[in-house]
C-alpha cells in the first residue's frame, strides 16, 4: 500500500466528526471580558461515558450548553451525532436529552403529566408504556401522580433523569446527575446509567464534582481549568500521570496549581 493509498483510506476530519457522537473543534466562548471556554477540542466515540471535571467556573456548563445549542460559541465548531450545532439542531434534538441543575420541571404538574408532555414533545411511541417502564426503573411509582413541587430533592432528581431518558436518547448530557441524592440512591442511579449505556450503546457526557462517580462510570476524563483542557485521558492513565491513587487527589492538584509538581513527581 502506497503512502497515498494509506492517506486515502484514513478517515478525514469530516468523517471522524460524523462518526463521533460529539466533535468539538477550537471552541471558544467569550462573555464580555471573560474567556469562559478557551480553544478546546475533543471528540467522543459513540457508546462511551466521559466525565467533564473542573472547579467552579472552569467552563464545564458553558461547554455542555454549547454542545446542546443553548449557548452560541464565539468561534469554533460543534458537531453532534454528525450534525452541526446549532445550525442542524432540528436533526438531532430528538435523539439527545439532558439533565441539569440549571433547569427544573414545572412544579405544579404531576410527575406523570410532566413526563407525558415531554414524551409528546419527543414523539415517544407507546408513551404510557414508556412512562410505566421509567417509573418502574427509577422507582417513581409511589409519587407518579404527585405534583413535582411536592417531591424531595432526591425524588426530583430521579424525575429529571426520567425526563432525560424519556426518548431513549443516543446522547445524554448530564450536569451533576447525582447531586442531592443519598449515597444509596446515587449508587443506584449510577448503576442505572451504566446499564442504560450498555443496553442502548448510548454516549454519555457528564459534568460532576463527585470523583468516585467519575472513577466508577467514565471511560475517559476531560479536566478543565479556566476554560482550557488541562488533561484528557482514561481515569487510570490520569491518576498514574499525577502519581495519585484517586481522581480527587488529581482534582486538588489541578485546582491548586500543583500540576507540574505532581507530574514531575510521577516521572
Amino acid at each position: 500500500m502506497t503512502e497515498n493509498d494509506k492517506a486515502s483510506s484514513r478517515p478525514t476530519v469530516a468523517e471522524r466528526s460524523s462518526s463521533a457522537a460529539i466533535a468539538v473543534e477550537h471552541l471558544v466562548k467569550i462573555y464580555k471580558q471573560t474567556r469562559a471556554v478557551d480553544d478546546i477540542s475533543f471528540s467522543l466515540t459513540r457508546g462511551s461515558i466521559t466525565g467533564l471535571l473542573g472547579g467552579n467556573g472552569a467552563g464545564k456548563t458553558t461547554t455542555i450548553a454549547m454542545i446542546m445549542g443553548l449557548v452560541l460559541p464565539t468561534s469554533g465548531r460543534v458537531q453532534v451525532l454528525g450534525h452541526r450545532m446549532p445550525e442542524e439542531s432540528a436533526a438531532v434534538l430528538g435523539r439527545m436529552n439532558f439533565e441539569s441543575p440549571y433547569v427544573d420541571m414545572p412544579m405544579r404538574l404531576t410527575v406523570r403529566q410532566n413526563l407525558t408532555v415531554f414524551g409528546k414533545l419527543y414523539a415517544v411511541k407507546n408513551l404510557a408504556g414508556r412512562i410505566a417502564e421509567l417509573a418502574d426503573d427509577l422507582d417513581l411509582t409511589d409519587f407518579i401522580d404527585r405534583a413535582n413541587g411536592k417531591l424531595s430533592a432526591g425524588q426530583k432528581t430521579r424525575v429529571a433523569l426520567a425526563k432525560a431518558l424519556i426518548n431513549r436518547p443516543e446522547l445524554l448530557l448530564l450536569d451533576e446527575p447525582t447531586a442531592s441524592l443519598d449515597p444509596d440512591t446515587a449508587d443506584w442511579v449510577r448503576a442505572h446509567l451504566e446499564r442504560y449505556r450498555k443496553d442502548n450503546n448510548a454516549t454519555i457526557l457528564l459534568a460532576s464534582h463527585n470523583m468516585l462517580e467519575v472513577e466508577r462510570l467514565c471511560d475517559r476524563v476531560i479536566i478543565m481549568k479556566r476554560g482550557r483542557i488541562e488533561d484528557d485521558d482514561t481515569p487510570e492513565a490520569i491518576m498514574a500521570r499525577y502519581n495519585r491513587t484517586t481522581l480527587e487527589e488529581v482534582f486538588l492538584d489541578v485546582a491548586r496549581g500543583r500540576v507540574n509538581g505532581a507530574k514531575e513527581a510521577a516521572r
Partner: protein
Amino acid sequence: MTGLAVHRGISVHRIGAMILRYWYLLLSSWPRLLELLYWPALQVITWGFIQYYIAENSNFFARAGGTLIGAVILWDILFRGQLGFSISFLEEMWARNIGNLMMSPLRPIEFLLSLMVMSLIRLAIGIIPMTLLALFMFQFNVYALGLPLIAFFCNLIFTSWSVGIFVSGLVLRNGLGAESIVWTLMFAILPLACVYYPVSVLPVWLQYVAWALPPTYAFEGMRALLIENTFRADLMLEALAINAVFLVASFASFLALLRSAKRHGSLLSGGE
C-alpha cells in the same frame, strides 16, 4: 428561513403537547382560573355603570349607547389576549423550564403557536362571561355587532400576539428583570389607539402615530358601527395589512432576541 421551511418543520403534535402542558397548569390552580374571570368582570361592571351615568346626562352618549362598554370589551380582548399569551410564556420562565423546552425538538414557531392558542383559550374563559355580564346587567349585547365583531376581534388579537411575541423575546433575552414590560407595554398603546375617544381628538401629528396602530382601526370601526350604523370594511382591511407587518416584525425580533440570548448565555440564567 423560508415560509416553506417553517411550514414543513411545524409539528401539530408538539404544539398539542405544549397546549396540554398549559391546560394541566390551568386545571391545577383555581386562583389562576379565578383571576381570568375576576378582572374582566370588574372592568365591565365599573364601565357599565359609568356608561349609565353618562348616558343620563348626555344626549350624545344616550344616542351612542354602548360605545364605552363596547370599548371596554374590545380593549379587554386586546389586553387579555396579550396577557394570555405572555403569562403562559412567563410560566416557563418562573418554572425554569425554558431550557428544557429549548433543548427539546420544540421549534420557536411551534412554541409561539401554542402560546397563541393558549391566549385564545384564556381569553374565552375571561371574555365570554364578561360579555354575558354586559348583556344581563347593562343590556349591551356585543354579539349583536354580528360579523363586524369577528373583524374587530381578529385585528385586536393579531396585535395582542405581536406585542406578546415581542415582549416574550425581551424577557428571553433579559431574564425576569424585564418582566414588568409584559404587564405595562400594552398600556402605552391605550391612549394612542383611541380606545374611548375618536382619533380626531388627538393633535394632528399624534394622529399619524395612532393610525399606525391596528387597534385604532378596530375602535374607530366600533364607534362607526354603534353611532352611524356603518361597518367600515376599509378600516378592517387596513388594520389587517398593518397587523401582517407587525406579526412578521415581532416574529423576526423574537428570533433575533433568542439568538442574542443564546449568545449572552441568558437561557442558562433566566433570572434577574
